[in-house]
């Protein structure tokens, strides 16, 4: 049952094949079994069981609230959840209990979703590995998959199985791992530079970033106000569309949400592939791109072409500067957003009480890790009077050029862009930590952050397994506010590639029938 899609489980609940309480308990027990993944910071067991009970009552009366009623979900720990600790994986907010729910959390709860817990992340969502939070790194469930282990046995013998575990990618690694390990059916992440799509690609799940302004950011502890969006992680594109339908729409509490009316939608089967125009940005053919990812990218392009779509090479000329521009804007906004953490009204407070400045300084030293402090200092540097014009304003100008690049490409008739999501498959933690956070982020965000600067919707879809048995994802980028169209195309593509289900048999003694590899029926991109 846990391996089913959200839609399938929802149907099962409506038909009474399983009750919300049973489902909730199965997920809770699986969360306990997979505790070593460190995907969850807080497991809200009591709350979840209570919500499941209420959902069950509704189903018994025939008054279900819809497709999400009774469905276990998880939320990244930088979304405020009323009465549930929200830490952002930082000492600064350890023990902080918000008095309100983020709008997106409230919407999920209003539709009857069952909140399993808060997932782990990089501290304050800064990072691309989910390795820098105070609760420790998140382990990629694929490290323990049959597919990966079998490939490893062929290479290394007698190695300690757990010492070389893989990262999930970040910063919504906990959410991605929670979904990939079947402990919930959907999870919320946040996406500022790729933080939802990156771990989605590494964990073999769907990571969707909505258009900026479509989904409310109220209650999402902000990193970069002009780029943050809540992200959705699910096991298939259809599920992401269901969740988006519940979350999208104007929020009076977030004035950056657009006021256009939004209605929930079901994704129709996409039949007009031959009318599509797919753009392949040539600047995304980075030298660091792994040959396997490049090969899958090329095969995907060929797949569209073979179905009659027009596939053309396009140019986004300022691509090489986008990561630099992102770096300046991100650190500058971070410097501003982190200023609210002074220990006075909430969060950690140090013991020094001699003066406000000494108190603020010590509180912030104790509360933030090196990564956060580094970004605050960089941001403050770029915002100094003597640097403001040359760095911050300059970066804002470059941002317009980057956004215009996308506008020009879409105006030339391209419907959707197809790019890699990451440079390679997930790497082992021991290798990942050899470089510092800023270097890694600059490397790993290369395909994803330009989308945030332009505010466009994008989705990472798992495509196939690498030679090592690890997931590789590809990214589709759509026009602003054409999220539905984007998901339609992604759903079609997903059906073509038939990405295999992760085999975690050692953990699932009682549900082995759910986790068999699905037979590859149509065209597949397996090497």
């Amino acid at each position: 049952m846990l391996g089913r899609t959200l839609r399938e489980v929802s149907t099962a609940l409506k038909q009474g094949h399983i009750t919300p309480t049973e489902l909730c308990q199965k997920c809770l027990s699986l969360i306990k079994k997979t505790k070593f993944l460190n995907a969850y910071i807080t497991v809200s067991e009591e709350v979840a069981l209570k919500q499941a009970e209420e959902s069950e009552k509704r189903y018994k009366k025939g008054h279900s609230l819809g497709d999400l009623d009774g469905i276990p979900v998880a939320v990244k720990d930088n979304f405020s959840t009323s009465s549930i600790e929200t830490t952002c994986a930082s000492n600064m907010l350890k023990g902080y209990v918000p008095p309100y729910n983020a709008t997106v959390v409230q919407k999920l709860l209003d539709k009857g979703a069952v909140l399993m817990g808060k997932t782990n992340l990089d501290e304050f969502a800064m990072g691309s590995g989910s390795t820098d939070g105070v609760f420790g790194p998140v382990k990629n469930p694929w490290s323990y998959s049959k597919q990966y282990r079998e490939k490893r046995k062929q290479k290394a013998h007698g190695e300690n199985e757990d010492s070389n575990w893989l990262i999930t990618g970040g910063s919504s690694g906990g959410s991605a791992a929670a979904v990939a390990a079947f402990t919930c059916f959907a999870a919320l992440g946040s996406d500022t530079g790729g933080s939802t799509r990156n771990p989605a690609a590494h964990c073999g799940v769907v990571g969707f970033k909505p258009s900026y302004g479509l989904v409310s950011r109220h209650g999402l502890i902000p990193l970069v106000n002009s780029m943050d969006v809540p992200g959705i992680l699910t096991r298939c594109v259809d599920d992401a569309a269901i969740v988006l339908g519940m979350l999208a729409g104007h929020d009076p509490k977030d004035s950056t949400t657009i006021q256009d009316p939004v209605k929930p939608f079901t994704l129709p089967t996409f039949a007009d592939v031959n009318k599509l125009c797919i753009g392949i940005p040539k600047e995304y053919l980075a030298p660091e791109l792994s040959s396997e990812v490049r090969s899958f990218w090329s095969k995907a392009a060929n797949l569209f072409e073979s179905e009659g779509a027009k596939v053309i090479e396009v140019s986004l000329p300022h691509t090489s500067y986008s990561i630099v521009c992102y770096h300046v804007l991100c650190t500058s906004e971070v410097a501003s957003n982190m200023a609210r953490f002074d220990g006075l009204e909430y969060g950690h407070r140090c013991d020094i009480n001699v003066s406000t400045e000494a108190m603020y300084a010590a509180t912030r030293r104790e509360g933030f890790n090196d990564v956060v402090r580094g970004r605050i200092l960089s941001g403050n540097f770029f915002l100094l009077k003597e640097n403001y014009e040359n760095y911050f304003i300059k970066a804002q100008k470059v941002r317009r050029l980057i956004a215009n690049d996308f506008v020009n490409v879409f105006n030339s008739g391209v419907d959707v862009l197809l790019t890699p999501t990451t440079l390679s498959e997930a790497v082992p933690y021991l290798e990942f930590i050899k470089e510092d956070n800023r270097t890694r982020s600059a490397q790993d965000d290369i395909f994803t952050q330009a989308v945030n600067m332009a505010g466009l919707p994008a989705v990472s879809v798992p495509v196939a397994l690498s030679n090592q048995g690890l997931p590789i994802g590809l990214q589709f980028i759509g026009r602003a506010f054409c999220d539905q169209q984007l998901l339609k195309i992604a759903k079609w593509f997903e059906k073509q590639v038939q990405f295999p289900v992760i085999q975690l048999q050692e953990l699932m003694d009682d549900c082995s029938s759910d986790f068999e590899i699905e037979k590859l029926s149509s065209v597949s991109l397996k090497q």
Partner: protein
Amino acid sequence: MSSLLSASSALREDALRRLKREMWARAVKLGLRSWVGWRRGFTSKADPQRSGRVTAEVIEHLERLALVDFGSQEAVARLEKAIAFADRLRAVDTDGVEPMESVLEDRCLYLRSDNVVEGNCAEELLQNAHRVVEEYFVAPPGMCSPKWLNRLSLSELRI
């Protein structure tokens, strides 16, 4: 009446003097002096040969503005790298290009009508603070900045 007032003001002054002595004593105990000393010593350790955008002056200025300390030479090196990285933007021709603040710049920002619809949650909000007195958040005094401490003589600090 006047004797009462003068007595009470004398008491107040006494209390203030005692408070100041306690504060300085605590400052010493908490190693604040060492923190100030460390900061001074740290900046003077800054490598004079570093290609220096990040001079000792800049370090001090940034720490003061951000109220976050560098903590180590590594952090300074990381900032230097971050600046060098950002310098790549100079190669882009942005003549005649307007800065972009938001991707939604073509739309009108939504503004609610100015009516009170929620509030009265002082108690809830105060619960998250560590130091609270009635409905006030308690902050330490603001005049005792490091600059002040620096000016004081060592003998006073040793109280």
